[in-house]
């Protein structure tokens, strides 16, 4: 009787046991390090939690109204929308263009593939520091300013100039450099899956190579890859923190521009302020926005829908 119970618990061929052996540690980690903190954060967001994670001062939705009425927080959401609206199409276009070019190469393809992929292996922090200190520093020996000097142009303090907002050039180029190679590889895989017969058929039908073939064959055939790439890009943009923080913060804080929500919340909740309630409320608002955007996007692209 007992034996059959144990056997039932283990499942046929111990499958249940193996299931938990493989999945268990992951589930445990996910619960302990993701779900518990998540729930705790929601809990904290309803309290005045200065310098404490076990608050007693219930404030209802005060933190939420404070956060939504806080110009700096709503401003950070706008910053972030502008950033996403630019970086997603830009990376998409650049990596697709790279993939198309590399795919056409008859020799040294592996070499160029690796060359463009290599920056992916570089950390955001290191890249941000190189961009900040050697390429885009504001003095005469910065790389960008040296180039400007050749043309007799006036030097620019890239990260400190808000009008025009040159700091965006630094932020955007570092991210493009870091991530374009990765998406290029995804596109390459997509390109190589397109059957050569389609191109042959197009040629027979009189399609001109170049734009016409790309528009009617290559691009539609890359649909699945494109959806994945855009989704990944948007998620990555949501997580923007590293390069912003390392490019623009200093020992005394962070300037009030180009401040994405994660950076702002980092200073509110984890900085000296230690206003964990307010920070959590902001995090919950941000999480809700991300959830809505992701769901809408998945619907829009028909993610997971069977291809016909």
């Amino acid at each position, binding site marked *: 009787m007992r034996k059959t119970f144990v056997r039932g618990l283990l499942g046929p061929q111990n499958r249940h046991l193996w299931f938990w052996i493989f999945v268990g540690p992951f589930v445990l980690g996910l619960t*302990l390090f993701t779900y518990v903190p998540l729930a705790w954060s929601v809990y904290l967001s309803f309290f005045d939690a*200065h*310098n*404490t*994670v076990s608050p007693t001062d219930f404030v209802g939705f005060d933190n939420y109204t404070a956060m939504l009425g806080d110009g*700096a927080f709503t401003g950070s959401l706008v910053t972030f929308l502008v950033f996403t609206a630019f970086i997603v199409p830009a990376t998409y276009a650049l990596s697709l263009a790279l993939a198309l070019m590399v795919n056409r190469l008859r020799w040294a393809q592996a070499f160029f593939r690796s060359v463009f992929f290599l920056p992916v292996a570089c950390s955001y922090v290191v890249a941000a520091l190189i961009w900040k*200190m050697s390429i*885009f*520093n*504001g*003095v*005469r020996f*910065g790389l960008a300013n040296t180039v400007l000097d050749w043309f007799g142009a006036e030097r620019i*303090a*890239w*990260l*400190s*100039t*808000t*009008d025009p907002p040159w700091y965006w050039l630094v932020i955007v180029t570092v991210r493009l450099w870091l991530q374009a190679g990765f998406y290029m590889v995804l596109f390459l895989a997509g390109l190589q899956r397109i059957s050569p017969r389609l191109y042959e058929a197009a040629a027979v039908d009189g399609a001109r190579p170049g734009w016409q073939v790309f528009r009617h064959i290559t691009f539609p055939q890359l649909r699945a890859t494109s959806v994945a790439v855009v989704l990944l890009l948007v998620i990555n943009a949501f997580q923007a923190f590293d390069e912003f923080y390392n490019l623009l913060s*200093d*020992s*005394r*804080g962070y*300037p*009030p*521009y180009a401040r994405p929500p994660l950076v702002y919340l980092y*200073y509110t909740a*984890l*900085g*000296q*302020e*230690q*206003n964990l309630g307010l920070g959590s409320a902001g995090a919950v608002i941000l999480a809700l926005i991300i959830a809505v955007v992701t769901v809408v996007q998945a619907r829009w692209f028909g993610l997971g829908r069977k291809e016909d």
Partner: protein
Amino acid sequence: MSMSRRRLLGAGGGLALTSALASACGSNTGRDGDDHAGQPVIEQWYHQYGEPGTEQAVRRYADAYQKANVQVQWRPGNYDQQTAAALLTKSGPDVFEGGPTLDQIQGGQVVDLTDLLAEAKDDFNPAVLAPKTYRGKIWGVPQVIDTQLLYYRKSLLKDAGVEPPRSLDALVDAAKELTTRDVKGLFLGNDGGPGVLSGTPLNAAGLTLVTEDGKVGFDDPAAARTLLKLRQLYAEKSLLLGAPSDWSDPAAFTQGLTAMQWSGLWALPQVKKALGDDFGVLPFPRDGAHGAPAVPVGAYGAAVSARARDKALAKAYVKWLWVERTDYQEDFALRYGFHIPARISLATKAAKLRQGAAGEAVRYATDHGHAEPLLWTSASKTAYQDALSRIIKSGANPDRELRSVVRETEAELRRVKKKS
């Protein structure tokens, strides 16, 4: 190491395990600690001081304490954030250098240290003791005083025919005059000033951040007038921006990227080594009819965590090191970096602080020093610095910006007053 092993055995859950691992990593103190075996442990945190020798010195002091096994943690990185987070947990420090901040005091995270200073209180510099005092009680023992000054290159000023600026208007003119294609006039940090200057320009205009009776101290038209002059520095392109190292490092000044730089007293030995006598120091120049020169002064306070293993022992240690052992305090302040001892008796005695630029710096700190008020919370500070940045860089209307800062600061002052 024996301690962390014992703690590891006693650990129940994963969290305790990680804390034990963390302290195992951090307890590499460079000594075996055998002479303190079996004694109660005090964990003491310092932020990473830049000057060589400081770390060895504090470990030496810790080792010399007979009644406990003091384990020093030398913490690089965002120290204030680390301590703020660590004070929420049991694995934080027993003794640490920190503000302590008003929220830490009100939140009951630090211990009242008033009785430690019962006799020596009058010997501590009142300007830096004030922000450690809340409602008559002292929450941190000032360790050493740091201050900041305006360094200027004598030869460059002379070549340009510029006098060392004694008023903010003169500073604006001088910076413009000194700016050439390769050398900028003034360096106030890569952000253009808001971070490092903070309330100093307001002090120089005769205002304060928070008044002694706990009100906003810059709700005054003079504030906007003064801050607008900082905007002028930026708009006239007299400021060095985007230098490889920030204001706290004198590199931009010694390498000739700028003719004047705002930096810390700690930079003085480096500047002297690089430039010899070709430099001078000034306070932030006064502005307006009611203004006076100003320099910021600040001190880390040695504080005891409310979650300390043994509060009485930790307090006794703080008293021993930062009140009784004046020889160590002197050594700490003067031998490695360049700080002013928090004890007046030590500061006046120190020969190193009497001659030349150092002597002037000490005089500025004594006569014109302004410490950041305890009631100036980091929420107010962020609002003010954001506004200052918008005024300087984006040319925002200073009256409007300051009005919103005043509102926000008033709300913060109400919050902290309500709390206690």
